[in-house]
């Protein structure tokens, strides 16, 4: 019967952790909607999370689109419907791959750095020092990242989608011979505004998930360098899993 009490213990600690993370997010949102907002800190974070991720997003977007073009062409070829390559590539990117892959790339590039930065500030007592000055660390460290994530993710996703669509056209059109008019014309016929909105909603929520998880893990990092490295690993894993989990929930419930 020992495993039952073990199970209870694990459940309790899990609920406890979820509660803490929930409170953390609630506090961050509360600070985000009440002045003062630290604009220069927000701009810096948009630059870091957004602008500095563009190269990585560009590359992953291009290759994802090219693979879709290649795979899609051969699959559709079996049904003799390669004319629908455009909408197939576009819908896959806009509804799923764009938001999800962008979120995973941003987690790896910016999320881990966020956790490490905040974690180091925690263990070197910079956060305590800020609090002693009568300043709320959330306003300087958490809120700017949260807002920057919400702004940057949809924009990065849009870049990913567009680059991917042209990557698909490069392979399917230029190399394999689908006409330009067919590729983009059919795309315009089949892609609806709801599909685009679905992608935007997803990327907005991913922006929240990434910054939330990565900031929380850094903010609650344990003692010393060991604590920070542990927090960074956990942040990347948890953020990636939550992105995929939430993607499924949104796809199945809302659309």
């Amino acid at each position, binding site marked *: 019967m020992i495993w039952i009490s073990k199970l209870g213990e694990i459940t309790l600690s899990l609920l406890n952790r979820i509660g803490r993370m929930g409170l953390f997010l609630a506090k961050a949102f509360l600070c985000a909607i009440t002045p003062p907002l630290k604009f220069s800190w927000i701009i810096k974070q948009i630059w870091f999370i957004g602008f500095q991720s563009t190269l990585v997003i560009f590359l992953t977007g291009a290759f994802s689109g090219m693979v879709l073009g290649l795979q899609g062409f051969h699959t559709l070829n079996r049904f003799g419907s390669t004319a629908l390559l455009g909408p197939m590539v576009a819908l896959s990117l806009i509804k799923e791959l764009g938001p999800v892959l962008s979120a995973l790339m941003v987690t790896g590039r910016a999320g881990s750095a966020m956790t490490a930065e905040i974690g180091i*500030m925690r263990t*070197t*007592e*910079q956060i*305590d*020092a800020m609090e*002693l*000055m*009568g*300043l709320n660390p959330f306003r300087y460290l958490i809120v700017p990242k949260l807002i920057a994530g919400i702004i940057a993710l949809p924009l990065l996703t849009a870049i990913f989608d567009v680059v991917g669509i042209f990557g698909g056209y490069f392979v399917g059109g230029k190399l394999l011979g689908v006409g330009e008019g067919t590729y983009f014309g059919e795309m315009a016929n089949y892609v609806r505004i709801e599909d685009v909105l679905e992608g935007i909603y997803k990327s907005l929520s991913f922006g929240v998930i990434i910054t939330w998880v990565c900031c929380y893990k850094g903010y609650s990092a344990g003692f010393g360098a060991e604590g920070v490295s542990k927090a960074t690993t956990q942040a990347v894993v948890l953020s990636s899993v939550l992105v995929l989990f939430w993607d499924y929930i949104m796809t199945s419930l809302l659309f």
Partner: protein
Amino acid sequence: MIRIENIYKSFNGFEVLKGISFQVEKGEILALIGGSGNGKSVILKHIVGLMKPDQGHVFIDGKNIGHLKGNDLEEIRGRIGFLFQNGALFTSFTVYDNVAFPLREKTKSSEKEIRERVLKELDQVGLAGAENKYPAELSGGMIKRTAFARALVIKPEVMLFDEPTTGLDPIIAHTILDLIKSLHEHLGFTAIIVSHELSRVFQIAHRVAMLHEGRIWTVGTPEEILSSKDPVVRQFISGVTGGSLKLY
């Protein structure tokens, strides 16, 4: 000014403080000594409310810091300067911006007034000319001086120094303690100093409190501590100073 009443604190079931009580009068310098890991930093963090005692109270000017919230807590903290063990400088800011930060964020001073204040504080701690350096470019002594300037810039009535000399070579350590002494004469703050540099600290402090096994083992003037017959005190002092501590 500071009154600590019977505080207890445990971490994960491990009891660090087991009923600590002492007082610091206005204008006084109290040296807090004791072995590493005994809870000296934990005591200082209780005084500013960064940690909450499991039992007991901390009073500052008669106000119970554990019961204060929001603006009242901020007001009290605004009167206390805290020098963290490793400086806790903002690593992404220059020396100048570190010292200017509390003024920029907490006061309505113009950038010109701020500049005057910051340069004066930096000059006061002997850092004139270093304002554009980043913390990573500073030596240990300069980090402590910057942190000291950042704490002083809010004109605190109380200064808490957590190991301002640890990790510095003895000569630099002495200059830091001399700086504390001369600024104390000049500004008249109340202070608690945690330091292992006993020979100099005993010259500066009005009273010394020794922490041992989670309790304040003994409190007294430096002379009383030095002439103590208590084996624990004797052993600690000779352990830190190699048995050669003389006051004058």
